[in-house]
């Protein structure tokens, strides 16, 4: 059997553009490629994506494979897994790296099962062990209380990368590579069930993942009313509002605002945690933020341990005063 070589990345295009997570994959993939040797390839599935494929080369890929198919909102995860499996059989990579996105997290186990190999989802770090040359996969376990480092015993190994774990790749116009169209026929009997529809809720203002400032509220906010105050603060700072699980479960805010292990992962420049106790399940979703501010009545709340700045007190008093002062500073 031929040796496995190189890396295959699962590129994603939403509304015509390369996703930020795909640029993060390219950053990790390029780094691993330089250490491991072998080509760094990326696969795009869809129509009218040759420009995107070209852009991926500037972002670090040696080769962009383009396969015709439905756009992501009509793409069944079985179909995607079939295409990835077919390409993998053809090019035999050591590693297949997907994003831990709505699609990637769903397709990765399906792909690993098809390839009879192994999969590690939601890694925050993927690196080469300098001594053994093996690929170390780090991920959060026990709700963020611990981290585990895994080594796969099979190849190709399938890994998904958590969003905002690394800086996205920047284009380098001097880079060269090839765009390779592939004709992959998917056996429709391997696609079980039908994707009837994908509904994306319009995001109010800035998307959480893209926001430079995130103002997040927890159980301490006490109801939907308090979130109006957080919205004002987010608006002033050009940021987005997020929440922990409690406000989502209680229906104070839409569950699409959840930050943490079962929600969004964000890494803004400034994260303002209001009325948030700081459970590990939440902190794993924001711990990569540049600055973390905590406002909480309970001085013992664990959130203060992971914060850079803290104010102990009632947010109802703190937020209006903070707003006032920020307005003054920002207009000065």
């Amino acid at each position, binding site marked *: 059997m031929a040796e496995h070589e190189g890396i295959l990345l699962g590129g994603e295009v939403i509304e015509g553009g390369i996703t930020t997570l795909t640029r993060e994959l390219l950053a990790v993939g390029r780094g691993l490629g330089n250490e491991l040797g072998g080509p760094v390839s990326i696969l795009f599935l869809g129509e009218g994506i040759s420009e995107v494929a070209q852009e991926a080369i500037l972002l670090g890929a040696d080769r962009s494979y383009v396969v015709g198919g439905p756009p992501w909102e009509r793409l069944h995860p079985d179909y995607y897994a079939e295409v990835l499996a077919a390409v993998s059989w053809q090019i035999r990579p050591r590693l297949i790296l997907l994003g831990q996105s709505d699609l990637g997290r769903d397709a990765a186990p399906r792909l690993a099962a098809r390839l009879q190999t192994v999969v590690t989802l939601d890694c925050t770090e993927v690196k080469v062990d300098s001594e053994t040359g093996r690929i170390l996969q780090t991920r959060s376990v026990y709700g963020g209380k611990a981290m585990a*480092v895994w080594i796969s015993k099979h190849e190709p190994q399938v890994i998904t990368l958590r969003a905002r774990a690394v800086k996205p790749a920047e284009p380098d116009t001097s880079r060269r590579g090839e765009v390779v169209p592939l004709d992959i026929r998917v056996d429709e009997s391997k696609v079980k069930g039908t994707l009837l*529809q*994908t509904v994306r809720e319009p995001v109010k203002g800035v998307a959480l993942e893209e926001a430079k*400032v995130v103002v997040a509220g927890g159980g301490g906010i006490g109801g939907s009313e308090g979130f109006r105050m957080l919205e004002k603060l987010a608006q002033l700072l050009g940021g987005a509002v997020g929440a922990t699980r409690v406000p989502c479960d209680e229906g104070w805010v839409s569950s699409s605002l959840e930050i943490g292990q079962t929600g969004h992962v964000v890494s803004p420049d*400034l994260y303002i945690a209001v009325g948030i106790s700081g459970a590990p399940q939440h902190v794993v979703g924001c711990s990569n933020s540049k600055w973390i501010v*905590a406002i909480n009545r309970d001085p013992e709340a664990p959130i203060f341990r992971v914060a*850079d700045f803290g*104010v102990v007190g009632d947010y109802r*008093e*703190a937020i209006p005063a903070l707003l006032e002062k920020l307005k003054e500073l920002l207009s000065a």
Partner: protein
Amino acid sequence: MNIIVCVKQVLDPEIPAAKFKIDAKAKCVIPPEGIPPVINPYDAQAVELALRLKEQHGGKITVLTLSDDGGDKVVKHALSMGADEGIVLSDEAFGGSDSFATAYILARAIQKIGDYDLILCGRQAADWDEGLVGSLLAHFLDLPLVTLAKAIEVEDGKLVVTRVILNGYQQFGVPLPAVVTVSNEVGQARLPSGWGIIFAARKQIPVWTAADIEADLSRVGPGAARRELQQLFIPSRERGCKLISGESTAEAAAKLATELREAGAI
């Protein structure tokens, strides 16, 4: 509609971080004294969804767990919520099984049960947080799979499953039987009822071994594991927090704004 729900016993995920200890050498978690393990909360939500489907469409709910000890406790929890039957899979050979082996063992047991329309799993276990077993189970059973469901409707003997995505939802149509993993958006799992607790206490729970489900022993246990755990550690996310105080909370908050400005955070 006959539903099988796969459940797992886990370390109580609500324990405070201070009580969470690991044995770095053995690469495992040291169970804290006096805090009993619980049914994986995501699995309890899968049981909850099964109960809602049963209330609408009738049928039977069978709960399945793989456990080397105490597995009947989580099965009994599900029975006390309203499930009808429970089975524990237990065998020395099963210890140290990874997600692939676990899914294989569950698939063998489900094939032995035979009579089912739907298999539900929690989206992930609150211990290793992998979220793999449900997906792999569908593969071993060669069944349709939908992950991260927040709702299931039954229409003309088919399912319409609403899947959670980050900024919205997807709907999948799948024929039965199918495997569905259940996300936390289904809402709180119901508490055991008084009658349910009595029913569960009296219920005999069969234990099936590797031989009972005709499991291929080369596919289970640590020998079959496709990965190796290199390291387990407790991360330090601590930052030196500068607590800002003032005469009042408002004054402290105003000072915070100034600090943020000086630090270049805004």
